């Protein structure tokens, strides 16, 4: 029993270190898409992953990456499960993940909007939000596009240092 627990903990540590295919400075654990690693009584490692967005084209790559790392570490029986509920939120990006994003010039997300019951309100008035520039720290920044090279990011630019930067959207 103790061996199994230790083994499960080791399997978790290995799965946690798999890098994200699209944001390779982050591990799947940093991004919050690795939802759990467990060991069944029969000795199968079950790792659970959740997609960031429905259209994430890298899910198969992530599954294969986790399975390969675990097999390389000596786990013969590995099962990867997809978890859709609860849906991924940018709030699950860990403090370490946020720090790594900023170090790579990508502004980390603020707190995800809290959904009240009922219809999602549409706000047309300009929203005053400040995303600090990940390079120079200035708050004098503006959004250039809410969509960017991957679903999870928006394009911003800094008006102080004039550098464009990416920003992980709150969702």
């Amino acid at each position, binding site marked *: 029993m103790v061996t199994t627990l230790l083994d499960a903990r080791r399997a978790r540590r290995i799965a946690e270190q798999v*890098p994200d295919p699209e944001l390779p400075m982050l591990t799947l654990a940093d991004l919050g898409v690795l939802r759990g690693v467990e060991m069944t009584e029969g000795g199968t490692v079950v790792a659970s992953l959740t997609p960031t967005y429905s*259209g994430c084209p890298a899910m*198969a790559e992530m599954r294969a990456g986790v399975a390969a790392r675990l097999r390389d570490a000596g786990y013969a029986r590995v099962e990867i499960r997809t978890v*859709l509920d609860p849906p*991924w939120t940018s709030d699950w990006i860990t403090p370490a993940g946020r720090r790594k994003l900023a170090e790579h010039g990508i502004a980390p997300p603020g707190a995800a909007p809290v959904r009240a019951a009922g219809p999602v309100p549409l706000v047309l008035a300009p929203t005053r939000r400040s995303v600090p520039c990940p390079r120079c720290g200035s708050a004098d920044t503006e959004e250039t*596009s*809410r969509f960017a*090279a991957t679903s999870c990011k928006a*394009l911003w630019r800094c008006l102080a240092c004039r550098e464009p930067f990416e920003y992980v959207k709150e969702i």
Partner: protein
Amino acid sequence: MSDDHVYLTLAEGHEDDARWAYGTGFEDPLHGVDTAVPEGVDAGELADLCVTLADDALVSAQRLAEWTTRAPELEEEVALANIGLDLLGQARLLYSRAGQVDGTGRGEDAFAYFRDAGDFRSVRLAELPNGDFAFSIVRLLVLSSWRLAHFERLTAHRDPVLAAIAAKGVKELAYHRQYAAEWAVRLGDGTEESHRRMRRAQEQVAPYLGELFTACDVRDEVVAVLRQVTEAAGLPMPVYGPLPGSGRAGEHTGHLAPLLAELQGVARAHPEATW
């Protein structure tokens, strides 16, 4: 995989399913999800509902993808392609769910590539050609508002898989609607030319609105959103009348078959191929 560049990884040889999802022959996106249908849920109805919602998304995604290399600015091209990708992802999950519960065990490819226009249940508004940017924005505003309202309700569906797909989709659709609404205001309240184009787009969309609101419990909510946007944009509220026929019954305009021919051509010419 190489961390250098994502495109290099696309060109690398891959084993098993370690590929990015851009072609055919992918493993089910619901891989490892509990596939049981809860007691009291009619499997046939659930499958039909999933296919209907998936068809709307797939056809919309194809039209949005057509903007690639043709959008007014690079940022808009990226935005429209991203919105299309979200919808494609929703379609993949929904087709997979449909194949699980309808007893056939069909995968997503069977639904997307090997059905003809008459088998598609998408609304006709989704299949109309892109027209100008104004038309695409008005259509996106209508379809994203309508789909968002539906998905909000579906988060309480008794099938936990459909409810989870909807909960994920709500977050995405809120971004799509926001994008379309902001452009609608910018263009409607912009120059004389942009305002004129938006008026024309509204007239072109109007005949297809009736179909969205047939037997529909989200009408008031969608109308309220459209009113909010048109007022801010200085545009009139579109007046719509029922157009005979229904995409939900497989009755489509002549625009769907050519769209599907382009979407399905390679998969049908090489049915066993994966890429």
